[in-house]
């Protein structure tokens, strides 16, 4: 039976180059052959650079020290309303939108790219899901964060501790992953600290 396997190990050029390094095995004819059979690579001309559109200016990114400094500055925020809180949350996570649902599933604040149908359905479903999800691991304690990875975007929610059986879910739609992870603890801390002040 014919062997249909395709090795495609075209080592002729490799060996020709090796001959230039290991002169003991190289011959004049082989060196000539190397130059005669120049590989069909495309060389980029420096002239081409004049035709290229300049790249947009690089957005300066804070160094780790600066990030730490700014993290310290953002450590203690004071919010008097959910609107203020989610505006800050959006900045920290670069989320497309942020919403707050109360324990009845009503949207009490939202900001960012709000879909035509609003967040009402999402809020209600998240609230319904919290109780269900806590049954996944009954001895694991209270559900604090939800992280749902859909194939189009990601939905994340923090569930505040209940006060008189009332709690809130702050939902983040399509946050930037690295921004979210680097600020997750600060966001948690600030939401929980400001919870008594927000209406």
């Amino acid at each position, binding site marked *: 039976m014919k062997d249909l396997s395709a090795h495609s190990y*075209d080592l002729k*050029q*490799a060996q020709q*180059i090796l001959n230039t390094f290991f002169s003991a095995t190289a011959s004049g004819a082989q060196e000539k052959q190397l130059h005669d059979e120049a590989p069909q690579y495309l060389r980029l001309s420096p002239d081409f650079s004049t035709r290229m559109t300049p790249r947009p200016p690089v957005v300066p990114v804070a160094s*780790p020290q600066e990030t730490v400094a700014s993290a310290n500055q953002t450590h203690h925020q004071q919010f008097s309303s959910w609107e203020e809180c989610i505006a800050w949350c959006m900045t920290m996570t670069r989320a497309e939108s942020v919403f707050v649902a109360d324990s009845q599933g009503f949207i009490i604040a939202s900001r960012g790219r709000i879909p035509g149908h609003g967040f009402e359905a999402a809020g209600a479903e998240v609230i319904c899901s919290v109780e269900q999800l806590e049954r996944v691991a009954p001895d694991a304690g209270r559900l604090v964060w939800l992280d749902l990875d859909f194939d189009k975007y990601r939905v994340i929610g923090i569930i505040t501790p209940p006060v008189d059986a009332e709690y809130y879910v702050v939902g983040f739609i399509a946050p930037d992953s690295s921004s979210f992870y680097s600020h997750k603890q600060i966001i948690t801390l600030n939401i929980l600290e400001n919870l008594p002040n927000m209406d």
Partner: protein
Amino acid sequence: MAHILSIVSSKGGAGKTTVALNLAVALAEEGDNTLLIDVDPLGAIGFSLAQSDTEWRGLAECMMDKLSIDEVIMPTRLPALSLLPRGRLDPIDVGIYENMLHSSTTLCEVIASVENKFRYIIIDTPSGLGMGTRAALSVSNFVLLPLQAESLALRSISQTLRVVQHVKEHENPKLELLGILATMVQLKKDVSFNIMKTVWGSLSGVLENYLPRADVFSVASEKGLPVAFLPGQYSPEAARFQLLVTEIKGIIQSLGGTTGETDERPQRALI
């Protein structure tokens, strides 16, 4: 004057860092003062030694004039081995780092300031043939090409050789190819065996020593150690690096380099 040896491969995962680290250790264990430089912007040497991304200051700080070269060269518990880590480079700035490495004189200055202190300087390069690799080649005397015993690596060897040849012809005439070091060889497996058969049959400059695929490398990586530093019986893989050192020194001598070994011995009495 140090022998400056870059470990280069266009393909990722070929074993460059493993070779660089364990070769540097093997040289140092023979008593040769050796400096291992991590030019790879990923800082693979640091990771191989189980250090976090921001643990060590190094080349990046030197490049930004934040620290002097003497401040970033780290001694190790192996007296003859020192490390020059990558530094606390922000991964976002890898592109800038590689461009600076290639266009600035930092690497040249680093080498010039330390080459009298070391007999061997081993440079671990990033995967690919970009600016970091070119910068390393432009300051090296020798280049060693790890070739993973797999099809993709063999198909791309010409690319690596072409860049090495180009650097020698246009940027660094003193650059010599030490050879091709087959890595992750599994002669009991058909594919690996066929690759090695092709390599041995079609290419010159393939080193006699090769590195097998072995669990000991994974164990060493997990523990953040060179293979020679693992506890227990000295592994055959660690011994292979000693053989590799002998072979490499022989090639360097045959290429006109000196390895500092005069082989002069005093007269001794047998009885």
